[in-house]
């Protein structure tokens, strides 16, 4: 194996080399938009031009931007077959054409190959009715990393039009299991938020579960049974280096990084039953026990300000969500409607909590509005679980079961638009949406 190949996975992760990876069909996720919305904003993203001495890159930047905008639900990108003109600069746009096509916005751009080999992607966003430029920017990236550039273009367009930071240039982590009987293999995977470019972070013959991102997106905490009992690992994604941070007697589960990354909330049962603890990652023997109750207390998740933790407890008989100060103290009950509420995920502003809500044999994702106290279902399956908010709160990723296999769905936070991501053969579950990415990651 050459050095280039050894480093390939790392480069793929840091530069995000896209589905240019040979265009394997199994790498390309199927995205089914389940229901459109009449209020979706029409946008034309015209195929970008290419100016360079060598062959154009494999990545269809405009195609990726269109797909991203469609996925969030607020936009409807114009079908490629309806794009009748191909301007690549603002000055070449004939606005009457796009007006006739009932487009509210148009994005044009070009990829300019630099002598060094990288590519400068220039793009412009126009308001069609006003014939006015709203954005004119350039992002430079590796030729092999143009999918990342495209996601950043989509985020900038999204933010300019909606006023909310885009979360398209993000990643997702999830668990897959393939094979049956004694041949089951579990993998912790990381992919782009559209499911493209899946990378294996760790493989195991024993169950893996509960992946959780560090706030800088560089590490994942997860639970593995490879030592026989559950243990919590923290692994650096780019290098693969990892360490066991907890392998106490009993359950070691449900890791969750604090918003500042200095602590890890987790579930431990060495005291006789599962309770919530907070571990100082710089001094791991310093653990604070947050809950002391004979019930099952688990699935801690931090409020965005890091001051308190929401967790699942069946202290009232059935699982419900409770909140406790990160320093300890009495827990207060958060959920009151629904017989089974578990595994909360909190929107970035702390105003909404999505959870798995059970009634009889049906489990769906429900969103609790903490201002009004009302909750509503945003999924329609029978065994939906593991909700995870996008870092901008616009979408919720969750796991569903279809037949004998697990699949992932992304639903807009209001429940109106739902898409399925088919990421791999076998079971896919336990999705976790990454925080926002920083340039250079």
């Amino acid at each position, binding site marked *: 194996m050459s050095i280039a190949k050894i480093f390939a996975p790392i480069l793929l992760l840091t530069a995000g080399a896209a589905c240019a990876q040979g265009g394997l069909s199994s790498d390309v996720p199927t995205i089914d938009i389940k229901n459109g919305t009449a209020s979706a904003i029409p946008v034309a993203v015209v195929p970008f031009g290419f100016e360079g001495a060598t062959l154009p890159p494999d990545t269809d930047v405009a195609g990726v931007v269109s797909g991203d905008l469609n996925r969030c639900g607020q936009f409807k990108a114009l079908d490629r077959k309806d794009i009748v003109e191909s301007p690549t600069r603002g000055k070449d746009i004939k606005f009457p054409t796009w007006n006739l096509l009932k487009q509210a916005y148009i994005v044009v751009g070009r990829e300019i190959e630099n002598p060094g080999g990288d590519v400068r992607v220039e793009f412009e966003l126009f308001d069609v009715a006003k014939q006015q430029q709203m954005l004119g920017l350039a992002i430079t990236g590796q030729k092999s990393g143009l999918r990342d550039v495209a996601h950043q273009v989509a985020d900038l367009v999204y933010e300019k039009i909606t006023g909310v930071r885009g979360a398209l240039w993000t990643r997702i982590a999830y668990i897959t299991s393939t094979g049956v009987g004694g041949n089951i293999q579990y993998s912790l995977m990381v992919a782009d938020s559209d499911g493209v470019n899946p990378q294996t972070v760790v493989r195991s013959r024993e169950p893996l579960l509960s992946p959780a991102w560090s706030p800088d997106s560089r590490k994942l905490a997860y639970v593995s*049974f490879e030592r026989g009992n559950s243990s919590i690992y923290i692994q650096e994604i780019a290098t693969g280096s990892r360490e066991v941070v907890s392998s106490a007697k009993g359950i070691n589960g449900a890791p969750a990084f604090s918003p500042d990354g200095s602590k890890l909330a987790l579930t431990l049962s060495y005291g006789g039953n599962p309770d919530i603890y907070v571990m100082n990652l710089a001094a791991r023997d310093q653990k604070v026990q947050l809950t002391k109750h004979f019930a099952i207390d688990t699935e801690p998740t931090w409020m965005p300000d890091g001051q308190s933790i929401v967790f699942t407890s069946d202290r009232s008989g059935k699982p419900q969500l409770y909140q406790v100060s990160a320093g300890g103290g009495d827990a207060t009950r958060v959920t009151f409607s629904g017989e089974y509420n578990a*595994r909360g995920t909190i929107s970035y502003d702390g105003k909404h909590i999505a959870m798995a809500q059970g009634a009889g044999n049906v489990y769906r994702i429900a969103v609790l509005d903490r201002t009004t106290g009302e909750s509503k279902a945003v999924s329609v399956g029978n065994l939906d679980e*593991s909700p995870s908010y996008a870092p901008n709160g616009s979408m919720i990723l969750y796991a569903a079961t279809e037949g004998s296999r697990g699949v992932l769905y992304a639903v807009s936070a209001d429940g109106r638009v739902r898409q399925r991501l088919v990421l791999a053969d076998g079971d896919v579950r336990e999705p976790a949406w990454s925080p926002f990415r920083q340039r250079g990651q």
Partner: protein
Amino acid sequence: MKLPIRILLTAAVASATLVACSSNKPKPQTQSSTDQTQTQTQDRGGKYTVDSLDTDSCLRQRVVYFDFDKSEIKPEFQAQIACHAAYLRQFPGARVTLEGNADERGTREYNLGLGERRGNAVSSAVGAAGASSSQLNVVSYGEERPVCKEHGEPCWGKNRRVEIVYTAKQ
């Protein structure tokens, strides 16, 4: 809650002992007489041999099933718990791991807790019936190790279980 379980267990142990006595042939004396521990355990009136784990109809039962979101041991499993407790009492070197499991409904981490609660319930029952706590280990796999994957009570009922796994037979 605890008292009735203990009373039931005592009764179950007594009946299991009777059943075991009547259904087991005298064990063949094949062990070396220099095996002090073995001789001592046999002298304590044990009716099992190590082979009984494979031949005794009660000891061959190694799975305890539960109701949904419950960890109470149902009466039909008391005999099974009693005979394993009797075996463990007879062979102090024997060790078991009680593997707790849940069905697919509900969240994975909660089910990890539920599986442990079931494992602990079996562990307490076997302990109350005479096994030493040092012989008993509990591991929860939650819903991660189903024996079947269909969505419905016939399959769910098989997955809500504790498996009694011997890691040392004597």
